[in-house]
């Protein structure tokens, strides 16, 4: 009985040491955990920006493609009318050349449609970004839970702004506000004598 009590005491001691070590390990990692939990929402926000940027770019390409398609449709109609007149005037050779132009335009219309369908890449990108943002949100929630459960606190500025992730996020953040528009660049260039 006494022997069993001693063994239990030893096991409880080992367990206490294990818990203590684990607590120390978690405390040591606290700055990184806290840092990551604060970085993730910013990273997710940049991913969402990326989705928006691809959407804006895609819509602009679509708008221009549709303009060209509409112009082609109007030109094809016009060429058809001219070809009819030429045929009526017995200018078969000229009419034939116009037909060739129309055939080339029809081929280009096919290419334009291929451009439109290729733009569906944006939908696939958006769906993947959405899933990544969901994953980041979930990881961030779990990290915050860890911080709360273990009562982790940041020790001064340790780990703040030192990691690669921090630097990259800073660059991304800065690019939002400090990215120069062409007009600003031109104004600056003008100040240096560029005309």
């Amino acid at each position, binding site marked *: 009985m006494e022997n069993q009590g001693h063994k239990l005491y030893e096991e409880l001691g080992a367990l206490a040491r294990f818990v203590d070590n684990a607590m120390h390990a978690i405390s040591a990692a606290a700055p990184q955990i806290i840092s990551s939990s604060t970085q993730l929402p910013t990273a997710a926000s940049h991913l969402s920006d990326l989705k928006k940027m691809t959407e804006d770019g895609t819509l602009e390409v679509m708008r221009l493609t549709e303009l060209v398609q509409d112009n082609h449709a109007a030109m094809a109609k016009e060429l058809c009318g001219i070809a009819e007149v030429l045929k009526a005037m017995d200018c078969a050779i000229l009419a034939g050349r116009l037909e060739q132009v129309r055939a080339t335009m029809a081929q280009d*219309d096919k290419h334009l449609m291929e451009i439109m369908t290729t733009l569906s890449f944006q939908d696939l990108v958006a769906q993947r970004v959405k899933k990544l943002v969901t994953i980041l949100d979930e990881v961030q929630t779990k990290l915050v839970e860890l911080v709360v459960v273990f009562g982790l606190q940041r020790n001064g500025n340790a780990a703040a702004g030192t990691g690669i992730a921090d630097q990259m996020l800073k660059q991304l953040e800065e690019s939002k506000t400090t990215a120069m528009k062409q007009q600003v660049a031109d104004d600056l260039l003008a100040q240096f004598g560029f005309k």
Partner: protein
Amino acid sequence: MPADPNMKILVVDDMVTMRKIVKNILKQLGFANTDEAENGQEGLQKLREGSYNFVVSDWNMPVMTGIEMLRAIRADAKLKSIPVLMVTAEAQQSNLIEAVQAGVSNYIVKPFTAETMQEKIGKIFK
């Protein structure tokens, strides 16, 4: 019976880019009478209010997914005969089987070409 160029087509997709792409392809293929909805619920509402002949729908959408809308269409006495073409990034066999079981008329995996769209429409309305 070949597809009627004047038939009214509803394009359902939550992404504005995809709605534009599908509508553009349909227009180039000769089908200019198109309308659009942002999700299954809006699509279903439009189908119940109007007289559509054909539906082109995405799968993954908020509020109501494409597969849920498809099931609702097939369960509705007035709508059940409308052909539904799914255009989706869900490329797993299980998705295709689920869509077939739900009564899809045909299935296109993104990214796709205009030829594929033409071929599928041809098969649906042959």
